[in-house]
């Protein structure tokens, strides 16, 4: 997608988003509510036309003329499963297979049910299944036409940890199958665990990088240094060594540092000034730190 924008009245929901996702890659979209993640997915799936910018999927530009063809190359898992509860798993999937023009012999439906592990529930009514199983049926629906691009909108939202883990394993398997996968999520740990790259959105793209590089961008890690006696008297020494003092609590200094040499420099300065250190506990910037810093900086 290049320069993708979408306006609703006066509100710019997506602002000039440019991003490429390759085959066999998982890119997660992170962003606060209303950041434009779902709108982006809807544009990519050909549900909403962009106000500006372009989308190309597998080399085919998405236009009103190509939208129907492009839709058959995209698998969309919507935020709500949106299944037909009164019908069986097989009926749900068979109907979607027919809508996508997949051969109605049932082989593809059987294969996709087997791939997501619901083949033993094929003839059960969807409404009687657990939320985790329903999410797997919805995932199977998104895959029934074997799309090279898969868009997953909050795929583990509301699932218990075991079900969420199973869905994450399925997502990772999609990458192994060579599909391009985009995941919208609020779960930072999940994004970090499965993503090759993470795109942080707040209407516009704030950053897009590997989870490790995003953490490193934050750079400023924090360190807790515990001294003998009151820590307040050592705060000025820490500041002089380049640290910013976030808090002083009894015998502990909470410092924010930047750069690889920061911790040894501060420790050396404190010891040189006569402080007796009990504990030095450096904490690396987490993805959450990096994400919040990006979003806060955007205002």
């Amino acid at each position: 997608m290049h320069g993708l924008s979408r306006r609703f009245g006066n509100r710019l929901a997506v602002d000039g988003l440019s991003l490429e996702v390759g085959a066999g890659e998982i890119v997660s979209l992170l962003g606060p509510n209303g950041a434009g993640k779902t709108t982006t997915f809807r544009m990519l799936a050909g549900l909403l036309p962009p106000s500006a910018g372009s989308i190309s999927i597998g080399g085919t530009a998405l236009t009103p003329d190509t939208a129907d063809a492009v839709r058959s190359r995209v698998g969309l898992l919507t935020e709500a499963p949106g299944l037909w509860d009164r019908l069986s798993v097989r009926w749900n999937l068979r109907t979607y297979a027919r809508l996508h023009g997949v051969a109605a012999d049932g082989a593809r439906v059987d294969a996709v049910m087997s791939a997501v592990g619901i083949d033993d529930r094929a003839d059960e009514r969807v409404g009687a299944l657990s939320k985790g199983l329903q999410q797997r049926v919805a995932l199977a629906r998104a895959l029934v036409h074997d799309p090279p691009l898969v868009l997953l909108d909050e795929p583990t939202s509301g699932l218990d940890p075991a079900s969420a883990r199973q869905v994450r394993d399925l997502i990772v398997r999609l990458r192994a199958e060579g599909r391009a996968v985009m995941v919208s999520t609020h779960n930072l740990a999940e994004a970090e665990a499965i993503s090759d790259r993470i795109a942080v959105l707040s209407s516009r793209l704030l950053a897009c990088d590997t989870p490790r590089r995003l953490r490193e961008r934050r750079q400023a890690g924090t360190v807790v240094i515990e001294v003998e006696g009151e820590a307040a008297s050592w705060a000025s020494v820490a500041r002089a060594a380049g640290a910013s003092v976030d808090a002083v609590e009894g015998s502990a200094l909470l410092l924010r540092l930047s750069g690889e040499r920061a911790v040894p420099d501060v420790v050396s300065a404190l010891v040189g000034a006569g402080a007796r250190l009990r504990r030095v506990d450096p904490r690396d910037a987490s993805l959450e730190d990096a994400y919040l810093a990006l979003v806060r900086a955007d205002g």
Partner: protein
Amino acid sequence: MVDGRAWARILALARKDAEEVRHQPGLVLPALAMGAGLTLPAFIVMVIAPRLTGEALADSDFAEAAEAAIGLAPALAAYSLEGRAQAFVLQQFLLFALLAPVLGSLSLAAQAIIGEKQSRALEPLLATPIRTGELLLAKVLTPFLISMGLLLATFLLYLGGTALWAEPGVWRTLFWTRTLVLYGVMGPLVSLTALMMAAIISSRVNDARTAQQLGGFLVLPLMALFVTQLLGQFLLGTPALLAMAGLLALSDVLLVGLGIRIFQRETILMRWK
């Protein structure tokens, strides 16, 4: 242009809707019961009332009205006085039969669309290659076919009751052009009107009963026609019925156009409540 692939998509969704109806017989049974119930008034007037009052239909106002209607329907002259009166009553009450497909259409189409909204199934559906016109057609196809089944069922009930209780040969009047226009032309057209109204209303409300109640206003013109006939002791002739069918067809074209506008992807996603 609806090509082979488009039909495959339309039929896939219509079959799904039919399967859902199979799992919810309560959607069809009230309309079927209503259809059966609506055939009763004609037989009450024709068979039960004369027995209760001891006055033959041939001696009632209906016989006079039937005489007057011979000009409109010369075939009436071939029957006895009682047979003429019976045929006249049957023809008057035939308009009731149109209520069965209307009620069936309203109930089924409202459920077919509001059911999708309530289960939030529209967005994944719109992510398939189905075109919005196909979606509209698919959503009204199953209710339309079932409504036509209801219409046929009421016709067969009429036919069976007439063969059983009316004078010999009166059943033939159910194959007059007037009857065929009512069943074969006005029935499908009024059913389509009900379907499109249900589809349009369903896009704005989230409760199938509300949609049915709002769509129920369609019953009023039919009832007005019936009451006018009954009070005036006359029959609307085939030309009048065909003129009304023309108006219905025109309104259906307008409603389909409006329906297609409402069934655009963006409208469904962003404006439907």
